[in-house]
């Protein structure tokens, strides 16, 4: 059975991603580790525990870093609501978080279990610190699937940077250079991917009605917590659409058969730009005068996901 740890800055799309992973009986989720990001650490931990309750599981949740390594903290409560769950009045969880720090938990779990896979849904601060603290242990990770980054022309937080990477670019640089197999699920995967047919991952009005018709506590939870994300999409695009970056990453990690297109590339994280800070710079080859430049691939980039398969995975998770 594949074993996963999920590192999450639990906002509303993380919560849906967690429902998906925790509903999958074919895998084992060893633990959740939480990190600041969409919301502060305390809120992220609360939301992770709430997600466990709605999923009907009791697994350890370890709180981690409440700040980035170097830069000042940025948040995304304008996207996910001030409680990160769409300000829908979701009650406090009964489950309690562990007292052990997420960085220690990551190191311990990876050394205790073989072939652990990591899914990261937030800033990479916990993972980077674990890599620095116990590199030989973290090298044992089988794979990291990371929701983060964007290809040229698709970023959303600045003109060229995606939120999870921008929230801690220095940590991202450590993770991208570390050497464990890394699958990057950039932002555009949740925006209908590279535009090819079948890659429609944005949940439209019909998709939301199908979820409503399922009519369970989980489906109700999903719709309630998504109100902020829906509003955010409407302001930008003027229509009904739910963009779900973190669920896309979980789908990629759990169901590689749903990947429509992926390629390998050299990805560097920009930590020195005045405008390009936090950008994931994707190099496949050198051009013009730099044609002899050789770039060693360090990342597999997913650029399109089977939208139909992705949506039925969400439906299954809330059924």
């Amino acid at each position, binding site marked *: 059975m594949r074993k996963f740890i999920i590192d999450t800055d639990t906002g509303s799309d993380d919560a849906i991603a967690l429902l998906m992973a925790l509903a999958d009986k074919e895998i084992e989720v060893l633990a959740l580790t939480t990190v600041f990001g969409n919301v502060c650490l305390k809120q992220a931990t609360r939301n992770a525990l709430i997600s466990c309750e709605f999923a009907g599981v009791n697994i350890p949740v370890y709180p981690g870093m409440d700040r980035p390594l170097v830069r000042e903290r940025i948040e995304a409560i304008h996207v996910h609501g001030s409680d990160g769950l769409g300000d829908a009045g979701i009650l406090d969880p009964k489950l309690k978080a562990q007292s052990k720090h997420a960085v220690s938990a990551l190191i311990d779990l990876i050394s205790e279990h073989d072939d652990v896979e990591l899914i990261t849904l937030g800033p990479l601060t916990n993972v980077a610190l674990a890599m620095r603290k116990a590199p030989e242990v973290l090298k044992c990770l089988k794979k990291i699937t990371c929701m983060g980054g964007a290809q*040229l*022309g698709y970023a959303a937080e*600045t003109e*060229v940077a995606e939120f999870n990477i921008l929230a801690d670019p220095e940590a991202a640089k450590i993770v991208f250079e570390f050497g464990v197999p890394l699958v990057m699920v950039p932002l555009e995967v949740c925006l209908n991917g590279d535009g090819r047919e079948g890659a429609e991952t944005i949940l439209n009005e019909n998709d939301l009605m199908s979820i409503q018709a399922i009519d369970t506590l989980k489906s109700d939870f999903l719709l309630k917590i998504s109100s902020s994300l829906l509003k955010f999409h409407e302001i930008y695009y003027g229509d009904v659409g739910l963009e779900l970056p973190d669920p896309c990453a979980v789908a990629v990690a759990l169901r590689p058969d749903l990947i429509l297109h992926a390629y390998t590339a050299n990805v560097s994280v920009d930590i020195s730009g*005045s*405008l390009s800070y936090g950008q994931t710079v994707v*190099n496949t080859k050198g*051009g013009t*005068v730099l*044609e002899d430049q050789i770039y060693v691939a360090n990342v597999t980039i997913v650029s399109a996901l089977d939208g139909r398969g992705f949506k039925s995975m969400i439906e299954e998770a809330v059924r």
Partner: protein
Amino acid sequence: MNKRKYIIDTDTASDDAVALVMALRSDLDILAITCTAGNLSLAKTTRNARLSCVFADTYAPPIYAGSDRPLVKTLVVGENVHGSDGLGDMFYPEPDVQLEQEHAVDAMLEIARTHKDVGLITLGPLTNVAMAILLDPIAMRNITHIIAMGGQYRMTNGCTANAEFNIWVDGEAAKIVLESGIPITMVPLDVCYGEAEITAEDRAYLKSLKSARGDFFVDCNRHLLAYNQRSYNKDIISMPDPTAMAVAIDPSIVTSYVDVYTQIELRSPLSYGQLIYDFYNRHKKAANVRLITKIDAQKFKTLVFKTAE
């Protein structure tokens, strides 16, 4: 009707040469050709600009030599792309076209001071233009607009991952031009590839014309062809500068554009020279660039073919 007046600033290598011939055989009135280092050293780009006038076989505007290096950076040339002479190592004979004594920047400023109806087409790094703006910003405000071949917005690895050669060679100059207030139409690499590529069939057609120009267009670009073959595995000649020139000659070639506030990254070693487009108007700043996002490629090719006849 008065002809539209332009100055062309160029680092003349093979695709610039085609663009110059197109300009000199069009309805545009080219008041001057100013040369800069870029694809090649300044000595070679001025020679190639003069040679292009011979192949145009219409008239030779005054040609001026300008900057021999970028403002701040060290010059990096692209002889691997265009050949050691910049014209496919065809080693064409010395042209009988003279080079003016005046510096390109002074010539540009002189025209800007005395005209209010002149535009600027830039086919290379923006060093000369930036110097002119620094020396006399008020005069340069008379330049009606700049049509620049430069940048990329979705396409990657034009030069570095996210920067295109002309902008990357002199990013500091590009910043000065972007902030000058002169309206800029940017023709990015993205629209110069794809349907606008000169294919084997297109080249066969140009050769079949049995014209000096048709031969010149294909022959002088043979290194560029080889570069595209080995580097992109594509049997094509890419034509960035002629595409920008076509936009000047026939603006109806443009089928889609966005007006966008554009900045440039200069501090990051990874992203130096990358143009940063504020497509979502986050900064609430007025657009300083009209970014061309689509052209009528067939119309473009027809213009190239007609010029070769």
